[in-house]
């Protein structure tokens, strides 16, 4: 398998958010600013990478009929570890994302990688896939967060660019859907070219 292509496939062609439409709950819920989106992306990257590694190593020991519950337990463990470690050492970020970290468990994007990729490929391919897909997810969330922060608060990564209030709707829930819609349109245009 071509590892370079394996690594880059998630960024545009198979982007988890813009193309596969997976993990939209955290993608919409946490991206009120670019930094929050980035933090959520990184937490997900860690979980998807670790679960990919474990699933790839033990795939032959797990009987087919119980593979999904096994994967869920593995993913849930890593999510809880992430949650505890973030609470202990990254208090500020955890306060912002707190509610959404446990929800990584039900992020079908993570289970999707375990089921669709790691359970069928070698350990090395799975590591590359986990990092690539995790970074692609982070990129998507950071883009969405940046777009919302820029339009909604006239700021980027917490730095105010223009004085005054932005279009507040973009920071609120409806704006998440609007911004996501335009970003998907943009990505589709990119894919066609």
């Amino acid at each position, binding site marked *: 398998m071509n590892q370079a292509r394996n690594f880059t496939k998630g960024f545009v062609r198979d982007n988890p958010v813009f193309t596969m439409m997976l993990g939209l709950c955290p993608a919409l819920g946490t991206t009120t600013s670019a930094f929050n989106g980035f933090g959520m992306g990184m937490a997900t990257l860690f979980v998807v990478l670790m679960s990919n590694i474990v699933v790839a190593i033990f795939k032959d020991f797990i009987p087919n009929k119980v593979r999904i*519950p096994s994967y869920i337990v593995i993913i849930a463990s890593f999510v809880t570890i992430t949650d505890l470690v973030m609470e202990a050492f990254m208090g500020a970020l955890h306060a912002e994302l707190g509610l959404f970290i446990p929800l990584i468990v039900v992020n079908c994007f993570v289970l999707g990688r375990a089921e669709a990729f790691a359970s069928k490929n070698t350990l090395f391919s799975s590591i590359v896939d986990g990092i690539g897909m995790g970074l692609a997810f982070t990129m998507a969330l950071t883009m969405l967060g940046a777009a919302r922060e820029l339009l909604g*608060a006239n700021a980027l990564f917490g730095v105010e660019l223009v004085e005054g209030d932005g279009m507040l709707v973009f920071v609120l829930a409806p704006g998440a859907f609007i911004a996501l819609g335009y970003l998907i349109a943009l990505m589709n245009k990119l894919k066609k070219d």
Partner: protein
Amino acid sequence: MAKKESNFKNMVLTLFIVTLVASTSLAVVYEVTKEPIRLAAIERKNNAIREVVPDFDNQPNEEEYTVEVNGEELVFYPAKMGDELVGVAIETFTRQGYSGTIELMVGLLPDGTIHGIEVLRHAETPGLGDKIETDKSDFYKQFVGRNPADFNMKVRQDNGDIDAITASTITSRAYCEAVQLAYDVFIEKKDKK
């Protein structure tokens, strides 16, 4: 190696091992992060106390006491320099926020003058109600250095002296109420002595 067969023994054994390993590793991580999480929580509280009262040299969080009002508890943190009381940090709250409870740390000088206010927790609308946070707007400055006995701590819409945050009258009203509660309890307690 061939994939394990999905018979009863294999499935039970696999799930047993997966859950055993998962719960063991979680227990380990929990033990490791327990202390840092506790310290981080104390640190956050101490920072808030330090922000709202004058310099002190005691440990306010070790001398805390609670005062009960209408079935709710307010926590008092006395700040002392030497043996002299220089101020009291009061953890107060209101349930009248636009999205639920707002928790504040209000610092009062011994005569009741407000020395500082920090927001501990809130879920107000980003971009509107969250301007009650001290680093997001100057709203809190209307309170600092003033004694609630000398001015009407209500928003202008309620014939008070406080300019509400634009488009966040409910949040501003709740904020005033929480500060007023802290002040009332403080005075009541002082009069009893």
